[in-house]
């Protein structure tokens, strides 16, 4: 645990700006008390002085030398301890093997406490604060270790990151005890280390169906002719056609030049809207139960990964009072940005409706597929989804409410209230379906296949009608 160092270790101050200068002794105070610097006497030192003083006084009064012997260990212990007292306070440092990791991955951290003084500490009490989703051995209790002079004691903290988010390890405080418990130092502090724990992406896969492919390039088959891999038919040669597109078999048969026409491959825009008005359910981390936000974030990460891998552009929008937004973009870099963006998702309760101007249909491209991840616990979210559908956007609602969620009251009137609430929620879902919004419970891979096919069919039908 303690590693001796051959030479004095140049320790970096844990607090930015270095150690504050020692307080000057107050006027009228002896210089000895001032020399304690950043160390303070404990009650035990006062007790030792009291015992020595009283016993010596009584010894003189009663002419008893045995009382001097009884006072001797108190006097000797205090004198030796105070004579050989350290002056430097402990220096703390927190190291983390990796500050970027994903849920369920092991965390390796190390607390180091250094003693730059030529006199050792009797003991050092280390206390650190960690996020509840960091399960580290010894991190929830103070740790006491001895630190010899000019050495560093390391304490390894091993554990797991249980849940996504921005987790903190620290701040860490360490205070030393010297002179057999008669002196205690000011605390050395190491600032918190922030860990980025990315959500474990849900395995997600979806059919190739996409209501409208809108970009110039991409992986989706569009309905527009152009350079692509999907055969659309054979037509007469026209100026501008490439020679390698000429279908020689048809041309020979018809005695006129014909070319094979293809449909262009185009990308699509997917907007993931995260309803963060409510958090429900109790999160048990990666190995336990899921809350609404757990499902929302992991599902969003999975969907974004799938569509970004397919070459589409993905945008994210938070339906709440912060109205956070991530612009649409594609590629690997956007995926990392999405993961980073998801770390800051948190529930935002409020009595008012988030501004319709910030969440109106005009904020989303007309060709985009809008996937709303919502627990459907609030009529405000349902109304927002309905507005998008009425405006002709392609909307899919993904129900993120955990199945079998425990209600706070489960007996008496609570049961009846729960049934009423469930009926009301079913009614809301039914109304959304009447508006043409498919609502599907999140179930990982293939969750959206059926509804995506339906939305694509509807999109194709609408285009035919318009023509």
């Amino acid at each position, binding site marked *: *645990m303690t590693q001796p160092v051959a030479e004095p270790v140049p320790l970096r101050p844990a607090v930015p700006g270095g150690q504050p200068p020692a*307080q000057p*002794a107050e006027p009228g*105070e*002896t210089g*000895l*008390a001032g020399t*304690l610097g950043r160390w*303070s*006497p*404990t*009650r*035990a*030192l*006062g*007790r*030792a*002085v*009291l*015992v*020595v*003083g*009283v*016993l*010596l006084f*009584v*010894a*003189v009064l*009663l002419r*008893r*030398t*045995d009382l*001097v*012997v*009884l*006072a*001797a*260990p*108190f*006097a*000797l*212990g*205090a*004198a030796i301890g*105070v004579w050989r007292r350290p002056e430097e306070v402990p220096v703390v440092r927190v190291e983390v093997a990796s500050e970027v990791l994903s849920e369920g991955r092991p965390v390796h951290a190390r607390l180091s406490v250094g003693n730059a003084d030529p006199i050792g500490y*009797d*003991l050092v*009490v280390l*206390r650190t604060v960690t996020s509840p989703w960091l399960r580290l051995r*010894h991190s929830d*209790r*103070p*740790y*006491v*270790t*001895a630190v010899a002079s000019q050495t560093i004691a390391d304490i390894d903290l091993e554990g797991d990151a249980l849940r996504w988010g921005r987790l903190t390890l620290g701040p860490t405080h360490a205070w030393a*005890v010297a002179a*057999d*418990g008669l002196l*205690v130092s000011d605390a050395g502090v190491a600032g918190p280390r922030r860990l980025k724990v990315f959500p474990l992406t849900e395995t997600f896969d979806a059919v190739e169906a996409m209501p409208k492919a809108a970009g110039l390039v991409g992986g989706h088959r569009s309905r527009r002719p152009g350079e692509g891999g999907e055969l659309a038919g054979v037509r007469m040669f026209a100026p501008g056609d490439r020679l390698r597109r000429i279908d020689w078999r048809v041309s020979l048969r018809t005695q006129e030049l014909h070319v094979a026409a293809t449909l262009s491959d185009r990308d699509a825009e997917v907007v993931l809207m995260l309803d963060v008005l409510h958090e429900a359910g109790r999160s048990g981390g990666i190995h336990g139960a899921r809350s609404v936000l757990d499902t929302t974030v992991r599902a969003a990460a999975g969907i974004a990964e799938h569509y970004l891998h397919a070459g589409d552009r993905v945008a994210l929008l938070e339906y709440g009072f912060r109205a956070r937004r991530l612009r649409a973009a594609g590629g690997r870099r956007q995926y990392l940005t999405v993961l980073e963006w998801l770390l800051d998702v948190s529930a935002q309760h409020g009595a008012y409706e988030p501004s319709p101007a910030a969440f109106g249909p005009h904020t989303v491209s007309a060709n985009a597929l809008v996937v709303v991840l919502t627990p459907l616990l609030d009529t405000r979210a349902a109304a927002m989804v309905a507005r998008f559908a009425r405006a002709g956007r392609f909307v899919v609602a993904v129900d993120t409410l955990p199945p079998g969620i425990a209600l706070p009251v489960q007996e008496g009137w609570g049961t009846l209230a729960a049934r009423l609430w469930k009926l009301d929620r079913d009614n809301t879902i039914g109304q959304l379906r009447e508006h043409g919004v498919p609502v599907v419970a999140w179930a990982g891979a293939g969750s959206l296949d059926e509804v995506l096919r339906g939305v694509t069919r509807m999109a194709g039908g609408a285009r035919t009608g318009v023509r």
Partner: protein
Amino acid sequence: MSGRGERQDGRTALSSWTDNLTDRVRRTAPGPVLVRAGVLVAGLLAQLVAWPAEVVLNRTVLVLIVLAVLPALAPRSRLVSLAIFAAVAGWLASTTAYQEPLTYWRLVLLAGLLYLLHTLTALAAVLPYDAVISPGVLVRWLRRCGAVVLLTAVVAMFTLLLPGYLPAARYLVASLVGLGLMLALAAYLATLVRRR
């Protein structure tokens, strides 16, 4: 109405206190418990050694047990000083009123036990109740305590045994010098006690 409210508040406070206590007991670590057990044993032995046999073998021993338990329960309080002075009072009573012989080993044993009580209480006072303690900490602490007790035995030898071999005048001078040194030491420590 207000009476019912007060009763409810009292019940809530009691429930909160009970929960807090339960949580503390659940989180208590073996290291600090071991130190406090050491405080209890040292305190009890000090009282038993200090007080005369008539008191120890009587029902009044319960008072001594209470005096030994209090520092273990509240190591940061003034009860520790009370326990130490009670033992000293017992020692004085034992050697004067009960006329028990003042032997060298009993005196050194009592001095060592009182210092052990004092230093273990100081350790218990700085240890959080739920702390995980590295094993070397306790061993080094007891080793330092042993060294101080050893020095005390030497001091006791000079104080009790040496005077028999010295002439009376030199003994008086040596006593005065020794007393002066101890007083100077106490004054030096007293200046340090004054907090910044």
